[in-house]
């Protein structure tokens, strides 16, 4: 009973009921939500629900190579006899984890920098932070990622680092725009006049009002980061075999096209599904906040 009460209080505070109403109006957003929830579930439960979990790692099964999809191997087997279905599910796990790590690394510093730059708009902090961000943003993302990744030794970790290094300015720019607009609003000035600590103002007054666009961006970004990560792996600069990264799997299976199409195709479709899911979800979240702004 206590939990129910608490949930109710939280829902009221953040107006969750209305937000859900707006979100659920679009069937596509609901589809996105379902897809992502399913993906997260698969990712978490991967070792328990897949038939051949060890084949996501080093185990190979050389006598069962190149088998087409069947009831024993749902998505068939690859060139080393590993179950493609298992590896694809683990691929979900890996992609989501990678996106999570990258965003965790990127979002907090990005937002903090943007808040500071926006709050102290016009000062040297502003100029410094924004000029540096502009430099990163001016270069096309994939090119930037490739450049950085190319000088590092190809690995899953390094590709995550490369993407993180180039991704933070987008959050800084987003938060900066919102913060510098809100900075001169009366409620902020009122807090200042009352002698409120600057940092308190930034985090308690300004930040909550930026949350809408930030949350939308985070959701859409998961899709983008996964896309970028799989692209890097595809060209060989990311996760290396035998890591079950979806991009690496597509690349690995591409030499066997069109004959053993399943080795590439299922991971490819998995990539599409997961990105599509986050795009739909992100649009739904955007709808929640857009109407609020009106």
């Amino acid at each position, binding site marked *: 009973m206590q939990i129910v009460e608490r949930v109710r209080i939280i829902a009221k505070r953040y107006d969750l009921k209305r937000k859900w109403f707006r979100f659920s109006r679009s069937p596509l957003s609901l589809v996105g939500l379902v897809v992502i929830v399913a993906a997260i579930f698969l990712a978490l439960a991967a070792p328990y629900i897949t038939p051949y979990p060890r084949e996501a790692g080093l185990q190979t099964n050389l006598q069962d190579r190149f088998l087409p999809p069947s009831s024993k191997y749902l998505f068939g087997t690859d060139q080393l006899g590993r179950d493609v279905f298992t590896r694809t599910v683990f691929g979900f796990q890996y992609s989501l984890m990678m996106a999570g790590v990258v965003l965790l690394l990127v979002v907090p510093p990005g937002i903090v920098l943007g808040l500071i730059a926006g709050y102290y708009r016009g000062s040297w902090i502003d100029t410094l932070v924004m000029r540096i961000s502009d430099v990163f943003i001016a270069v*096309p993302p994939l090119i930037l990622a490739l450049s950085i990744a190319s000088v590092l030794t190809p690995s899953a970790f390094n590709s995550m680092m490369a993407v993180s290094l180039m991704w933070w300015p987008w959050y800084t720019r987003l938060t900066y725009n919102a913060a510098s607009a809100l900075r001169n609003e009366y409620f902020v000035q009122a807090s200042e006049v009352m002698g409120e600590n600057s940092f308190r103002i930034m985090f308690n007054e300004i930040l909550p009002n930026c949350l809408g666009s930030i949350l939308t961006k985070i959701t859409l970004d998961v899709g983008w980061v996964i896309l970028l990560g799989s692209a890097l792996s595809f060209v060989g600069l990311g996760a290396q075999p035998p890591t079950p990264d979806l991009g690496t799997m597509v690349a690995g299976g591409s030499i066997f096209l069109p004959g053993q199409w399943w080795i590439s*195709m299922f991971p490819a479709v998995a990539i*599409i599904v997961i990105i599509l899911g986050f795009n739909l979800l992100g649009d739904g979240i955007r709808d929640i906040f857009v109407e609020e702004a009106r």
Partner: protein
Amino acid sequence: MRLSTFILRRTGLIVFSLVGLSILVFVLARVLPGDPARAAAGNNAPQWAVDQLRRQLGLDKPLYTQYFVWLDNVLHGDLGYSLTTKRDITADVIQYLPASLELIVLAAMFQIAGSFILGIIAGRYSYKAPDNLVRVVSYIGISIPAFVLAIILQLVFSWYFKLFPTTGELSAGIAGPPAITGSVTVDSLIAGKFDVLANALWHMVLPALALCMGAMCQDARIIRSGMVENKDKDYISMAKSQGLPDRTVTLKYLLKPSLIPAVTVMGLDIAALMANAFLVEQVFNWPGFANLGLTFMLNKDLNGIVALVLIIGIMYAVANIVVDVIVAYLDPRIRLMERGQ
């Protein structure tokens, strides 16, 4: 601010970013663990050979000296020596860049035409069947990474339906035209060999589609939402109330303001095209610059990588200038902001 100032500032920023990027890449390459001279010479080379190579490549000099040496060379047209292709990178660029350019140009044409058609149809019939179809298709189109699309297109239309060739610029047995620009399409046009031109274009369709699909769908959505948003605006009601014909209202007065947000992202679209080339050229075995670039990257060919970043940067900067000019032409408010309101 004035248009020319605006464009100059933007260009300046891009140039600055690219210089910054080249420095970053330059520094990273030399600072990170791994000895490039050793990597180039191979693991079995004797130490003296590695040292000699290091001296030869100028890797023993301090970092900033190396950078300025490189910069000086670039300004004289010398992009350095590639240890992978074993020749001057400038020669590599001249050979491989035209092929990428023709792909990008064709992809850009597909993208503009496609996004217009899809966006206008969706906007005109908004919330009805054609619109819903376009929306679903664009959603999916945006969510497919270029390399996935490339493989799927190849699988379905090349392997399965046998409608298009699988790889390469020209079919086996067809002689290329005499090389003037290095671009097969342009050269065959100049030489008047239309059968070669046709064959080359046929080979370009699938890769170009893979390059532009994401951006095409994105732009279609922007155009569509622009049209839907502007449809109920007063100036459209006014135009209708004056009895202007439907076609004029839609294709002239509704389209132009709706296009502007789409054109604004065109610069980013071109960037996407260039970036996607890295993913697509490999799949179709296209002898282009991006394919070469990947080879550089995988082999840690530092000169190659830095030269690559530079070239792409310059192309991107030029493309942005062009796009900015087009946007200013379309939206007079940007052009004339210092006068009037």
